[in-house]
C-alpha cells in the first residue's frame, strides 16, 4: 500500500469575479522511501497542492473535492487534534524561506526542545540531547554551541539545514519540501540535496520535492509530476520524463534548457506564457502555446492516456497512441 494517496484533489479560491479553481483533478500516490518531484512554472499550483495535502489551504481558499489517504486512512475523518498530531509526527514540510519555520526571537535549541516536548512528550534534558544529535546529523558544525544561537546568527544555508533538522526531530515518514534550495547558492543547494537524499535512503522517508529546477528533479527524484495551470499534465519515472517526455509542454520545458542546445545557438523557446487562473483557456490549457494543436484541443479537456508507468493529458499523444496500436 502506498504511504500517501491523493485522489482528485481540488482547491478553490472564492473571488469577486467568481470562484477560481487553483488545482483540479490532482491524483497521485507515493510509497515509503520514494522520492517524487513536482515541477511546473510559477503559479502552476505546486504550493497549493502541497498545502492541501496537509489540509492547510489558506483562507479564503478551501478544498472543494477529493481525498487524501495516509496509510489508507482518510485525513478528512481526523479530528483537529489528530490532524495536528499527524502534521507534527508523520508528515512535515520544508519551505523555501527557512524563516517560515523558524521563530526569530527564540534560540534554535528552544524551538527544537519545545517541538519534542509537545510532539513526543520528552523531558527537557533528553530533548536537548536529541536536538544536538539531529543538528549534527545535518552537518551543523559544533552543534552544542549552535543550539544556543538565534536564527539571524546563522547563514542562509545553515538556517535551511536547521529547518531540516527540525523536520527530522519527530522521525517523519513523509517530507514535503517546497523549493527548499531556491534561495541558496548552488554549492549549498548541492549539500542540502545530498542531505535529503541520504535521509530518504537511510530512513525510508518518502520525499515530495517541489521545484522548478529540472536538473534537481533529475538528480534527486525517482518519479516526477509535471503541472501546468493547476493540472497534472504528465507523470512518470524521472528518467523517462527527462529523456523521452511525451507531453508537448514537458518536451518544451526540457528543450528550453540551455544545456539542450549547443553554446551560442538559439534556445528552443516555448512561445507565450502560462495563463493566469482568471484566463485559463477552454479545452487543454496549454493549447495556445502548443505546436500540435488541433480543434479538439480548443474545446475538450484531455483525459489521461496511460502507459506502463506513466500518464499524459494530451489529445495529440492520445491520437498517436491509437494510430500506433
Amino acid at each position, binding site marked *: 500500500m502506498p504511504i500517501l494517496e491523493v485522489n482528485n484533489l481540488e482547491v478553490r479560491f472564492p473571488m469577486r469575479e467568481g470562484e477560481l479553481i487553483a488545482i483540479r483533478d490532482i491524483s497521485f500516490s507515493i510509497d515509503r522511501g520514494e522520492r517524487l518531484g513536482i515541477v511546473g*512554472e*510559477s503559479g502552476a499550483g505546486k504550493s497549493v497542492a502541497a498545502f492541501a495535502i496537509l489540509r492547510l489551504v489558506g483562507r479564503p481558499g478551501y478544498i472543494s473535492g477529493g481525498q487524501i489517504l495516509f496509510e489508507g486512512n482518510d485525513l478528512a475523518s481526523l479530528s483537529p487534534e489528530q490532524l495536528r498530531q499527524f502534521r507534527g509526527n508523520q508528515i512535515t514540510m520544508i519551505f523555501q524561506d527557512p524563516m517560515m519555520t523558524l521563530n526569530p526571537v527564540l534560540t534554535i535549541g528552544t524551538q527544537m526542545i519545545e517541538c519534542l516536548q509537545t510532539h513526543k512528550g520528552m523531558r527537557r534534558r533528553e530533548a536537548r540531547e536529541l536536538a544536538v544529535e539531529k543538528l549534527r546529523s545535518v552537518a551543523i*558544525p559544533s552543534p552544542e554551541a549552535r543550539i544556543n544561537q538565534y536564527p539571524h546568527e546563522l*547563514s*542562509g544555508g545553515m538556517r535551511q539545514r536547521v529547518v531540516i533538522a527540525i523536520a527530522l526531530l519527530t522521525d517523519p515518514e513523509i517530507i514535503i519540501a517546497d523549493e527548499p534550495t531556491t534561495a541558496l*547558492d*548552488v*554549492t549549498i*543547494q*548541492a*549539500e542540502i*540535496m*545530498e542531505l535529503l537524499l541520504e535521509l530518504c535512503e537511510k530512513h525510508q522517508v518518502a520525499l515530495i520535492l517541489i521545484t*522548478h*529546477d*529540472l*536538473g*534537481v528533479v*533529475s*538528480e534527486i527524484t525517482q518519479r516526477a509530476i509535471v503541472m501546468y495551470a493547476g493540472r497534472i499534465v504528465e507523470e512518470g519515472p524521472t528518467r523517462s520524463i*527527462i529523456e523521452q517526455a511525451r507531453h508537448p509542454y514537458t518536451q*518544451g*520545458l*526540457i528543450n*528550453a*534548457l*540551455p*544545456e*539542450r*542546445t549547443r*553554446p*551560442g545557438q*538559439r*534556445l*528552443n*523557446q*516555448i*512561445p507565450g*506564457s*502560462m495563463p493566469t487562473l482568471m484566463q485559463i483557456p477552454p479545452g487543454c490549457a496549454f493549447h495556445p502555446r502548443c505546436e500540435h494543436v488541433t480543434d479538439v484541443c480548443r474545446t475538450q479537456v484531455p483525459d489521461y492516456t496511460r502507459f506502463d508507468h506513466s500518464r499524459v493529458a494530451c489529445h495529440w499523444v492520445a491520437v498517436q497512441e491509437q494510430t500506433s496500436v
Partner: protein
Amino acid sequence: MENSNSDHKAKLLEIRDLYKAFPLSSGLLEQLQFKKGRLVRNRESVKAINGVSLDIYPGDALCVVGESGCGKSTIARVVTGLLRPTSGSIVFDNERIDHLPPKQQLPYRRRMQMIFQNPYASLNPRMTVRQTLEEPVRFHNPGIANGAVKEKVEEVMASVGVDPGWSNRFPHEFSGGQRQRISIARALTVDPEVIVADEPISALDVSIQAQVLNLLMEAREERSLTYLFITHDLSVVEHFGSRVAVMYLGAICELADTATLFGTPRHPYTQALLSAIPRLKLDRPAHIKLKGEIPTPIDLPKGCLFQTRCLYADERCRQERPDLKKLNSGARVACHGVEENRIE
C-alpha cells in the same frame, strides 16, 4: 586560447583595480572602543569589491558569476555610474568616466545601458509602455523631433517583439517575461554599445528565460552589442558567455574563455562551483564539498580570500594574497597552488 589577440584589440570598457567598501552605519556610540587605554572610533565597513581589474572588448559577452554577496551587482552599479568606487577607475572608450561630474557622464550613460533583475521595480508604474520607451530617447536627444522618436521606438518594439497593441497599457498589466522584454526595449531605444545586465532572467520561469535569452542574443548579433552579464546560473553562462569571470568575496579568482573555463576549470573554487550544478544528464562528477564557513566581507581573511574554505591551502596561502596569473590555456587564475603546480 583566451581571446588570442585580445592584448592588441582596442578595449571598450576597462575596470582598473577597483575597490568598493560600504561603511556600516552603526551609531557613534557603537563605533567607540577602548584600545590600549584610549577611546578610539572604530569604523567598520563591508568590503564588497577588493581589487578587480577587467578588460571588456567590443563584442564580448563577459559573464560575472559567483555566490550571493560576492559583489556582482556592486560591479554593475559602479560600472554604470550608480555608485562611486572607493578607489580604482572605470575607463570607457579610453576616457576615464567614474570621476566625471554627472552632466559629463551623460553621453556615456547613453552608450552603456543597464537591465535589472526585477522588471517590476525598474519600470515606472505610472508610465504607459509607449511613454516608458520614448522617455530615454527624448532625454538623451534633447530637441529631437516627435516623428523621429516615434520611428525609433517603433523600430525597437518590432525588433524585440513588443506588440504595438501594448503601447497604451501599464507595466502591471504584463507578465514578468513581458515586462523584461519592455525593459530590454527601453535599453535599446538609445542605441547603446554596452549592456550591463544584472541577473536579467533570474526572476523568470524556465520557458520564459529561453525567450529572453534568445532576445538578448539576437540583439547582440543585430546591434553588435557588448555585454557585461551578471548571473549566478552557470548553465546560462555556458550558453551565453564568450568569457567568464568567477568572483569570490569581491575579487576575481578565475577569468577565462567560456569553453576553457567549463572544460578545464583550474581554481579550486571554480571546480567546486561547477561540480555543484544540477544537470539533466547523470554524468556529473561527484560534488566537491568546500570546507569551513563563508567568511564575512566585513572581516576579510588574511592571505588568499578563499583560503578558509580551500582544501589545498598552505602557509603561503594563509599569508600572501595571490594575483591573477596567466596560464598557457590563456586562463587567468589567482591561486598559489595552481601556480606551484600543486593543484591539477
